[in-house]
C-alpha cells in the first residue's frame, strides 16, 4: 500500500503533530515500507482463524466497588501545564 502526502498530513493532524515538508517525505517512505511489510500477512490463509486482540488468554479481571484515597490537590497539579485555583487551566474551548 502506498501512502501519499495527503494521508501523512491527515494522520499528523489526528495525532496533533506538526511536520515539515522534508519530514513528510521521510514518513511517506517509512510508513509505506512498514505497510508493505505487514501486507505479507495477506499471503496467509486466515479463513478459519478468529481475530485475536489479546496476547494472554485470561479474562474477567475485576476490582470491587471499594473506595480508595484520592491524591492531594498539590500532587494533582504537579503535571498540570497550567492551573487556576483547584482547576486545570486550558486554552479556551469554543462551543
Amino acid at each position: 500500500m502506498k501512502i501519499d502526502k495527503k494521508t501523512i498530513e491527515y494522520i499528523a493532524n489526528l495525532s496533533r503533530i506538526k511536520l515539515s515538508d522534508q519530514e513528510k517525505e521521510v514518513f511517506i517512505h517509512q510508513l509505506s515500507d512498514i505497510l508493505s511489510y505487514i501486507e505479507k500477512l495477506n499471503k496467509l490463509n486466515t479463513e478459519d482463524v478468529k481475530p485475536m486482540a489479546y496476547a494472554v488468554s485470561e479474562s474477567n479481571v475485576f476490582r470491587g466497588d471499594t473506595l480508595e484515597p484520592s491524591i492531594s490537590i498539590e500532587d494533582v497539579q504537579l503535571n498540570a501545564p497550567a492551573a487556576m485555583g483547584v482547576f486545570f487551566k486550558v486554552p479556551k474551548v469554543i462551543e
Partner: protein
Amino acid sequence: MEYEVVIGLETHAELATITKLFCGCSTQFGAEPNTQVCPVCLGMPGVLPVMNKKAFEYALKAAVALNCEINRFTNFDRKSYYYPDLPKNYQISQNYYNLGINGCMNIDLNGNRKTIRIHNVHLEEEAGKLIHPEETGADYSLVDFNRAGVPLLEIVSYPDMRTVDEVDSYMQTLRKILLYTEVSDCKMQEGSLRFEASISLRKKGIDKLGNRVEIKNLNSMKSVIKAIEYEAIRQSALLDKGETIDRETRLWDEVNGKSARMRSKEESQDYRYFPEPDLLPVLIDEKWLSAIKNSIPELPLARKQRFVEAFKLSDYDASILTEEKVLADSFEECVKIMDRPKAFSNWITNDLLREVKDRKLDINSLQIKPKQLALLVEIVEKGTISSTIAKEVFSEMVQTGKDPQKIIEEKGLTQISDEGLIEAVIDKIIASNPSVIEDYKKGKKNALAFLVGQVMKETKGKANPKMVNELLKGKVGI
C-alpha cells in the same frame, strides 16, 4: 408538504457505583473540584485500569432489562479524540463487542403500546467537566476531572420514534427502568441522565431516511422535546424551499430556544477504535447471566398492567402508583396486609402525593409505613372516625410517623356514635334554627343538608354522619 419526523435517542446514564470505573476514586457529586482524582483517572503514563465489577454488572443488568442479546464475549475499545475534558486523549468505551445488542423497550401512549428497538447498550467512562469563565474576553477554560472515569452507560435507540409524545414516553419509561433496576439515580439536574436526539425528515410514504441532524446540549427532558420541535420546523422549512439537509451536529441553546451548528472541524471525527490493551475481555457465562436476570425486579410497565388486572385499578391510578418504585412497593405491602386495593390506591395517589408535594418531602424517606396506612383504613371502616377526620389523621401520620390510634387518642377525634349525645346536639341545632325548619317543611330539601352540617360543626366533625342524617330526619318529621 407533509413530512414524517424520524427520531432516535442516545442516552447516557451514570451508574450508581460509589467508585469510578477503573479506579477507587469516589463518584460523589458536588465535591471540591479535582479532589476525587488519582493517576489512573488523570491518565498518567504507566497506570493500569482495573474494571469495577459492580459497574459492569449494573450495565449488564440494564442491557438485560432492555431485552438485549448479551454478547457472551465482550471487550473494551479505545476511542481516540482530543478534547481537554479527556485526560488520556482517548476514552475507554465499547465498539466491536457491545455488552448488549438488538434490544427493545415497550412504551405506553395513552394505553397503546409501541415497541422501540434498542441498537446497543454499552459501558464506557465519563469525561471531565469543562467550565467556561463568564468574564468576557477570557482566553481560557477550566477543567474539573472529578467526573472523569465515572462509569457511564450508553443506550442507543433505533430511529423508531415519530412524535414528541413517543420521545417523551421513551425517556420516562427508560428513566423508570433504570431507577427500578437501581443502576442509576437518574438525576438530570446533576447530569447523571442525559439525552441526545437525532432527527431526520422524510416525505410521508417514503421509506428512505433523510439526512439526520444530531442535537446535543439537552439538559432536561423538556429541552429534548423543544429541540426536536424546533428542528422539525427548521428542516421542513428548508425542504419546502427545495434545499437539502446537511448531516451535522447542532447545539441546543436553551435560553434562546434555538439550535446552532457545531463547528464542522469538531464534527469530522475519526475515532480509530481499537481493542483496549490494558483491559482483558469479559466472558459472561450462563450462571452469571441468570443471576443477573434473577436480580431484575418486575419492570414498571408490566407492574402497571398487573395492578390494573389484579387489583382492578384504573389505568391512570396504576401508572401513578408505578411511577416510583417505592410507591408501588408500599401499595403492594398494604394490600398484603388488607385486601382493599382501591382504598390504598386512593390514599397513596391522592392524599400521600399531595402531602409529598405540599411539604416537599422526599418520597424515598417517608415516615408513614404501610402497616400504619392499613390501620387507618381499618379504623375508618369500623366507623371509629369519619373519612373527613381520617384525612386530618393521615396528614398527621405523614408528618410525624405516629400510629393512627395514637393521633386519634391524643386529639380526641373518636367518632361519636352515642345516640343520646347526637340527639342532644340535634335538639340544640333545631331549637336555634326555627326558620330553617320552616323552610324544610315547605319542601326545601337542601335545608336538611344545612342542618347536618351544623351538627357536624358542633361536634367538630366527630359525629357519625349516617346517624346524624337518620336522627335528624326522624326529628323534623319524615
